């Protein structure tokens, strides 16, 4: 009896040891497989961001003075830059204008293209063209559309006798921001259309059948079934869109460069101009870190939101 229990416990410890060896081996192999990707991400993305966080507290070395710790001086100079408040304001106008427009246009097309009609597949392909086009091509297209003398918009306005309205849309501080916002909406609404279409496919058709039996018309079905059930997808996509849009400045870069008179200069554009047009690299570095903090806050907000609507999101993902 005693002998047996000893040999039993020996077997158990032996098994445990084997399991531990196995776990160690698994860990080793797993990290070998992960090594290239992890190293690339840490060295090329995380390291430069962290190193910039450190150097932003130092002055730039000159021939006579080596680099020295100056605390938050760089941050103060970016926050005290007279352009900074207007850049923040522009970022808000741009971000909310574009995201709001994208959601509205996105849901319009999603609802339309969810219906059955002849040629639906073609309409679905054509509608995401703006989203598929490279950002720079979109900017060029619209710069051409908005051009003062031969842009299509002004040509049409002149053609119908509204000559007085025709002007340089991107060259006027009154219209430049709304003009670039329209381009932002045009470029990105396809993302929402795709998201909402995918979301609508997960709504069980029985719900609509039941509603119809109860005598609900199309509008009631839309307001009572489709929109409420799309809410999780809508919230997630919108918060994600806010993060991307606030940092997206390809189109602004190519169409206005932040002008005229810095009226379309959002925060990323302001940082770029500070660093690369005015060569105030230290100030731009501080600005870049301010932007990083904003993005991290928005990300935290996103994670909070996505966790709250999580079960629904997972269902959507499984279904598509």
């Amino acid at each position, binding site marked *: 009896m005693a002998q047996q229990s000893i040999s039993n416990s020996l077997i158990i410890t032996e098994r445990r040891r084997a399991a531990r060896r196995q776990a160690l081996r*698994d*860990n080793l192999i797993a990290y070998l*497989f992960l090594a*290239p*990707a*992890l190293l*690339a*991400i*840490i*060295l*090329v*993305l995380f390291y*430069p*961001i962290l190193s910039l966080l450190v150097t932003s507290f130092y002055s730039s070395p000159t021939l006579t003075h080596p680099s020295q710790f100056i605390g938050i001086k760089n941050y103060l100079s970016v926050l005290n830059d007279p352009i900074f408040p207007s850049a923040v304001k522009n970022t808000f106008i741009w971000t909310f204008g574009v995201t709001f427009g994208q959601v509205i246009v996105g849901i*319009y*097309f999603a609802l*339309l*293209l969810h*219906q*059955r*009609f002849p*040629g*639906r597949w073609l309409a679905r392909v054509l*509608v*995401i063209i*703006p989203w*598929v086009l*490279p*950002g720079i*091509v979109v900017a*060029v*297209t*619209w710069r*051409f*559309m908005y051009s003062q003398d031969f842009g*299509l918009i002004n*040509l049409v306005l*002149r053609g119908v006798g509204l000559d007085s309205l025709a002007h340089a849309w991107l060259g006027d501080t009154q219209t430049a921001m709304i003009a670039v916002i329209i381009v932002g909406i*045009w470029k990105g609404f396809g*993302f929402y259309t*795709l998201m909402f279409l*995918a979301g609508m496919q997960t709504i069980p058709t029985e719900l609509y059948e039941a509603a*119809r*039996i109860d*005598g609900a*018309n199309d509008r009631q079905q839309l307001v009572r079934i489709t929109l409420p059930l799309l809410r999780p997808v809508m919230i997630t996509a919108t918060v994600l869109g806010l993060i991307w849009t606030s*940092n*997206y*400045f390809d189109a602004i870069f*190519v169409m206005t460069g932040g002008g005229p008179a810095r009226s379309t200069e959002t925060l*990323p554009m302001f940082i*770029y101009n500070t*660093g690369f047009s005015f060569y105030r690299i230290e100030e*731009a*570095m501080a600005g*870049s870190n301010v932007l990083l903090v904003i*993005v991290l806050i928005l990300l935290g907000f996103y994670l909070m939101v996505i966790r709250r609507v999580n079960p629904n999101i997972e269902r*959507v*993902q499984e279904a*598509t």
Partner: protein
Amino acid sequence: MTAVAIRRSHQGQRPLQEWLYRNRDKVLSVVAFVSVFIIIIPALWLILTSFKTTDNIFVFPPQAIPNPFTFQNYIDVLRVGDFPRYLLNSVIISGVSTVLCLLFSALAAYALTYFKFTGRRIVLSVIVGTQFFPSAILILPLFKMWANLGMFNTYTSLIATYTAASLSLCTWLLVGFYKAIPEEVLDAATIDGCGKIGLLRQIVIPLALPGLLAGGAFVFIGVWQEFLLAVTLISDPKLLTVMVGLYHFIGEHTIAWNLLIAASVVVSVPTIIVFGLVQRYIVDGVMSGALK
């Protein structure tokens, strides 16, 4: 029955609604195509303009259909100047980045899907988290780092950057495809004496091939289109990518519209083709948050 009855009585009072209901298909079709047409006017206008002669681009009233119809702008853009060189640069940079990214993420996704290891959650959030890094916050750190390393104006700096920045998209997509492989297949292979590496090479990768193709397509197109990092990390005119080359057609005071427009159409063609090929996976990509 009841529903039909209700609807009939409801519509009997409103002839317009009844007509709309009976022709629902046609009405929807017309509304949809008119809406879509309005949306794609700018793109259509760009394509039509690319076939006009330089003089006719600026003529009033504007021509809807180019007359004479000319390919001269395309010939000029592809023969004159450095544009062909930019195309080559972009093909090299996008191609190498895509291959590296696929290789790294195929391995990483394997570990993430099939291994239990300490720190899995942290690794996952590090990899997936980077997809939310907008390039706006990367420009200055990367500019500073590559300049300090003396690698400003090299293919290497751009390729390394793009590879790292695309890894999260690709890995995440591949984890989804790996998970879809039935466990029985893997178990059978393991019983037959297949090792971990053999399993990856002989079972997982062949079965996840559509995922690799879709991931590769998204990475290629993402890199092909990228502008901000390319314009920041490269200034040597011989090394410019197509998107930056396109931007250079916009001069300080004048814009070579005929060349700019033809070049815009040329650089969009690969994007459209690739998206057409992987159309089925676009929604997967969107849902995984990988596409912006």
